[in-house]
């Protein structure tokens, strides 16, 4: 399994959610939950500021193609504003939000993989994915 596949898996879960959930904020909420989990879990390994720097850089790079995404912090290691991401995704139709988020996630994962290798990213993200299974499951009750 490659590092890209873990991003694909998260995207697939969000896409599944978009199809099965009748709750409007399901995608933004779940995406934000993912990012908080990434921030927490990955931050334990490489430091929260390193995660925030990666996140802000990924936002800036992805925003060229998806201007609806938030700008991110001016300072590269400024705190990550996941709420702003959630709000930006919520303002878009599901399909657009999904695509933008997928692009952001891939940029982030690929950037991280270029630094520490796809294998290690896969290992770290596998624990994130497993811990967020419940979040990704189409359980409306949790998302309300």
């Amino acid at each position, binding site marked *: 399994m490659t590092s890209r596949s873990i991003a694909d898996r998260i995207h697939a879960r969000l896409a599944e959610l978009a199809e099965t959930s009748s709750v409007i904020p399901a995608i933004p909420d779940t995406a934000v939950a993912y990012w908080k989990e990434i921030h927490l879990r990955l*931050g*334990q*390994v*490489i*430091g*929260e*500021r*390193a995660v925030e720097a990666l996140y802000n850089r990924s936002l800036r790079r992805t925003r060229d193609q998806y201007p609806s995404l938030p700008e991110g912090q001016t300072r590269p290691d400024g705190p990550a504003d996941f709420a702003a991401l959630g709000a930006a995704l919520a303002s878009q139709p599901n399909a657009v939000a999904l695509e933008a988020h997928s692009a952001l996630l891939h940029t982030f994962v690929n950037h991280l993989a270029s*630094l*520490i*290798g796809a*294998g*290690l990213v*896969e*290992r*770290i993200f*596998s*624990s994130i994915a497993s811990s967020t299974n419940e979040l990704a499951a189409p359980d409306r009750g949790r998302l309300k």
Partner: protein
Amino acid sequence: MTIPKATIRRLSTGVSGLDEVLGGGLPEFSFNLIGGSPGSGKTTLAHQIMFALASAERPALYFTVLGEPPLKMLRYQQQFDFFDHERVNQCVHFLYLADRLGDGGLDSVLTAVFEAVARVKPALVFVDSFRSVTTGRHDASGADLQQFIQQLSVMMSNWEATTFLIGEYASQDETNPVFTVADGLIWLYQTSQGNSVARKIDVRKMRGQRTVPGLHTFRITSEGISVFAPPRVLETEPPKRARTTPRARVAMGNAILDEMLGGGLPEGYSLLVAGPSGAGKSILAAAFLAEGARLGETAVIALFEQRATFARGAFIAGLIEAGQVGVVDTGAADLSVDEVAGLLIAEVKRLNASRVVIDSLSGFELALAPTFSADFRESLSRLIVALARTGATVLMTSEMEDRYDELRFSPYGSAFMTDAIVILRYIEVESRLKRVLAVVKVRGSAHSDELRLFDIDEHGIQIGASMPEHEGLLGGRPRRVTDVAALSDVRGRDVANPVEHL
């Protein structure tokens, strides 16, 4: 009834040669400091030990506090073969605590460590790193580093975790309380001289076991760290008992030389073949190897002057190809004698080799990092002793320029180290450059005292006659003995001018 003592299990570090220097491995549940300057290999050593020891039953927890940023650490450490990313987050866990240090000081770090230890239940704990331990600096929360280490040590011992604290310690001040707390002190050094870099490790302390004192060289390659313990440590076989029977003789690949040696070289002896460039030392060594191969023996060769594939033609290359002769790689930069000794002995054991060739000591010395050249003689002596303990018969060649104003039979003052010496010399006779050889010494054995002419042809060294009609060959002023009566009496006598200068 005797009360059983506590049993200290020793963990194998997975670092080649380190267990020997540690005195048998790392004591389980010990609290160790790994110190050294930046770039000396501390983090690499810690990772290598961690990946060697970590398992599902023995999880490892690696805290990064003030060391290099984890992104960089992980980026570079995974370049080593030992780094197995499949085990990350399974039995190897990384935890970044620098933020905690900034937020709440060392108290907060300590709390985070304890929480993580309680959660992961590690058997191995690494804390990387602290720079200021020796200064006794106090942090804002009032918990100084020494207290931190003291508490960490107690906590980890109670948790039954083998712990490593990695730090850029400024000195090895043995009065520092931190060093008293530690069960083990492992120091890494890196010294530069010209374009040469030498790395050394010093196990200053390892409670409960006898370490090998002193500085030991190590090398960092893609496989990680390899420590080169002194050869005597590597040798595990008990010394042979005093010999009561004569040694068997080893054929040299030249019947006349065997005869000159008194029937071949005694088995297990070390022979130094010394002479000027081009005199035939390597050819003699090749004959020694070829004879071994002919008898079905295996051999090991350390080449410092010629590549193995080019050395002495296709025949030796064929023996190497066939695995009958093992080659020790001497191409690495900045070698140490201990490193070469370790490689040689390992190869001798692997092949169960009965013959060893080092060609040449002169090239060997040049291949050493300058820092090791100073004690080359002592190190060489250790190497020869260690090789002798393997039971192999050793032939070493050595470049020795012809000097006609003094009689020398070996460079480096190494004559006493070896059991036998053969010298090769150039002489001028009748306006021709001729070669002669002589057996200078065979310990405990009668041997020829003749100077014999020899030629080199496609079959090797062809030893010819001695030159009783000449004398003074080694003094640079050869003379022909013209008086027939004196000729028969020439040896050892001062004949009143019975010679003419050539």
